[in-house]
């Protein structure tokens, strides 16, 4: 046993502690909490944070990095998602406000976007596109994104946004491409800024099932279960159609379409908690939709999805017409079908209308 042997073993055990800032808790090698100075954030590379152990693209969380899922996910052009929360050690989320859990300064919420390189083996060919962070700094939440390299070894911080063409093999093994938008740092706020304040979106009680909350309690993210509110339902599950449609709209649209959100001035409020039918679009006339109205006269015309602006805009890929405005390039066909069925089934049918449109 040489001195060199002894020293290399000591290096492995002790150096991660000695060179890092907070003297973080090492339980065993590979299960250490991420270590960084909040004041240095954002860091240039995703690996700088130490969120994951082993091969970073496998997204095996380090200690303190807690995975979670939401009931109603956001449509993102077929992208798969990985979601994780990292709270400062010894802290928990405050669930008093059901619409937005309060996380302490120093918290980081992580969301990765992935797609498949070969649709004949979607899981086996999964590759990460970008990993977005929301960091709770002393001055509020800030959003950043990291673009993965093709080799899947590293993701580098990218500020100005980018339009990607993702190449993949389809179910027949034929090479195809599809577009994907990486937002610029300002565009995080298009969805995440409400009432002039940047905030998280999916960390709300209605998005967290009872089972998910138990997992978060076991991981120390929650001290107790959140006070009960009516949860969203999985939009493509087997709950009631009305509830599924309202859950879809809440998850995909209500960050803008609510008072104080980017679409707040439209008067259309798509929170699942909105009970006034005209406010969530029933027979509501558009304000400033411009060509987005598509010759239709009401956001939702009960019984008539073909006369409903909501369906028109969600089915479009024209930048001026489409809804949502920015975050996707592809139509969510399943979402459109869900809302079409919902509107088609509404009674009584029709809206009062002028002589120009029967």
């Amino acid at each position, binding site marked *: 046993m040489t001195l060199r042997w002894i*020293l290399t073993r*000591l*290096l*492995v055990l*002790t*150096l991660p*502690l*000695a*060179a890092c800032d907070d003297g973080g808790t090492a339980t065993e090698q590979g299960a250490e909490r991420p270590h*960084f100075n909040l*004041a*240095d*954030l*954002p*860091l*240039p590379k995703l*690996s*700088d944070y130490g969120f994951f152990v082993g091969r970073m693209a496998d997204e095996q969380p380090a200690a303190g990095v807690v995975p979670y899922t939401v009931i109603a996910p956001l449509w993102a052009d077929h992208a798969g998602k990985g979601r994780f929360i990292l709270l400062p050690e010894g802290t928990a989320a405050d669930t008093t406000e059901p619409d937005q859990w309060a996380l302490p300064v120093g918290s980081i919420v992580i969301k990765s976007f992935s797609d498949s390189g070969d649709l004949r083996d979607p899981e086996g060919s999964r590759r990460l596109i970008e990993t977005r962070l929301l960091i709770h700094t002393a001055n509020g939440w800030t959003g950043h994104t990291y673009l993965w390299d093709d080799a899947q070894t590293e993701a580098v*911080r990218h*500020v*100005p*946004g980018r*339009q990607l063409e993702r190449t993949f093999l389809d179910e027949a093994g034929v090479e195809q491409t599809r577009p994907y938008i990486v937002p610029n740092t*300002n565009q995080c706020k*298009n969805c995440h*800024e409400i009432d*002039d304040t940047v905030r998280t979106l999916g960390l709300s009680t209605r998005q967290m099932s009872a089972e998910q909350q138990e997992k978060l309690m076991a991981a120390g993210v929650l001290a107790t279960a959140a006070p009960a509110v009516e949860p969203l339902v999985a939009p493509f599950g087997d709950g009631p159609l009305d509830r599924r449609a309202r859950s879809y709209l809440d998850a995909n649209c209500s960050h803008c379409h609510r*008072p104080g959100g980017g679409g*707040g*001035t*439209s*008067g259309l409020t798509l929170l699942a908690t909105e009970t006034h039918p*005209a406010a969530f679009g029933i*027979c*509501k*006339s*558009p*304000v*400033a*939709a*411009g*060509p987005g*109205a*598509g*010759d*239709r*006269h*009401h956001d939702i015309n009960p019984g008539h999805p073909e006369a409903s*602006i909501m369906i028109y805009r969600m089915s479009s890929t*024209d*930048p*001026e017409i489409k809804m949502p*405005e*920015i975050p996707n390039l592809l139509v969510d066909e399943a979402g459109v079908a869900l809302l079409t069925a919902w509107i088609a089934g509404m009674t009584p049918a029709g*809206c*009062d*209308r*002028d*002589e*120009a449109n029967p």
Partner: protein
Amino acid sequence: MGRGWWVLAAVIGCAGCDDGDDAGGAGGAGGSGGADASAGGAGGAGGGGGIVPDANGCHYVVAPGADVQERLQTVLIDAQPSQVVCLDAGTFSFTTELSISVDDLTLRGAGRDATILDFSGQTVGANGLAITGDGVIIDGLQVKDSKGDAIRAQAVDGVVFRNLRVLWSTPEASTNGAYGLYPVGCSQVLIENCIVSGASDAGIYVGQSHQILVKDSEAFGNVAGIEIENSSDAEVVGNHAHDNTGGILVFNLPELPVKNGARTLVHDNLIENNNLPNFGKAGSVVSQVPGGSGAFLIAADNNEFRDNIIRGNQSAGLILISYIPELLGSFEDPDFNRYAENNDFHDNEYSDNGTMPQGVITDLGIMMGPDILTDGCWPAGMPTGGNCIREAAGTRLDNLDFCNGFANRGADLTPFDCAQDPLPGQSF
């Protein structure tokens, strides 16, 4: 093991930590220069804080050319509040909306026909420029052929649009973007010396805002030239609204968070030849405006129109109506006041209006349009809705008495001989 082992370990080096990086991270607050090679090309970029402006007062200068989307957007994100981003002369081509969220940022070009932001290749984003920072100033540039609205300011306190041109290259195309200048939900909005043409809804639009000044600007070739909607305490002065479908519009619409706007002063404008057939997409209120409308008020209260020249508008010089659901769309909004009340029209010059009415005006059987057309719908107990008209003798009125089935339709101006308190101008 004693403490010495830990010291020895630290001295030997860091094999278990970030490869190749100095401990503590290299990013730095606000800095992006080190992270992305494509951010280069913008003079002085990278961190913002310590930059000294050049002789022209510019903290950053951006030239057109390759990668300008990423270069300029990076600068707009990196800039610190109150800094000035200057654009060289030339054409800048964008495929994605540009966003500005830094407060008090100035984006300045070399002139409205010298620095051209060309969005004709746009594939992403509903606007050309999207502004969410307070106090932003856009000065001396052109926004051309955006897919949607050219410049939107959303819920900001303070915004200035000055010396700008906004245009769409194809006249009267319903596929043109809806709005040229589009501040919505804002306060302290200043629009001056701007020229806007081609919008399929409104060229210069201000919505759900208060404290507004639109001055010395020109709007032509739009469906609505200048539109003040659900807004309060505005002054529209010294503008030339010509060859639009409707020249200057002041509307209150229902089912919006900010409603019942009031106190817009429209004065010393030239409102002429607004005879463009309506090319807006059906489904919007503005698509119901008949071509040939000089000025148009819907459900608006406590406004003052004075000292304007209103001429050559072939349907009517000025149209004053309540919100008519049969025409404009049904609504459910108990807080909305659908009547136009307490407006004051005086000392305007009318000539050559109504010579060839269009659209719904002809549907009403009107062969010769008046200088002033009103539906005559007033709340019970308010004989003229408090609206006052004191114009020169010979000014032609048509009061339709629409809500009484045209029963007392007439041209008598005497009931309107009253005055409201004059409105102040706006300065801020």
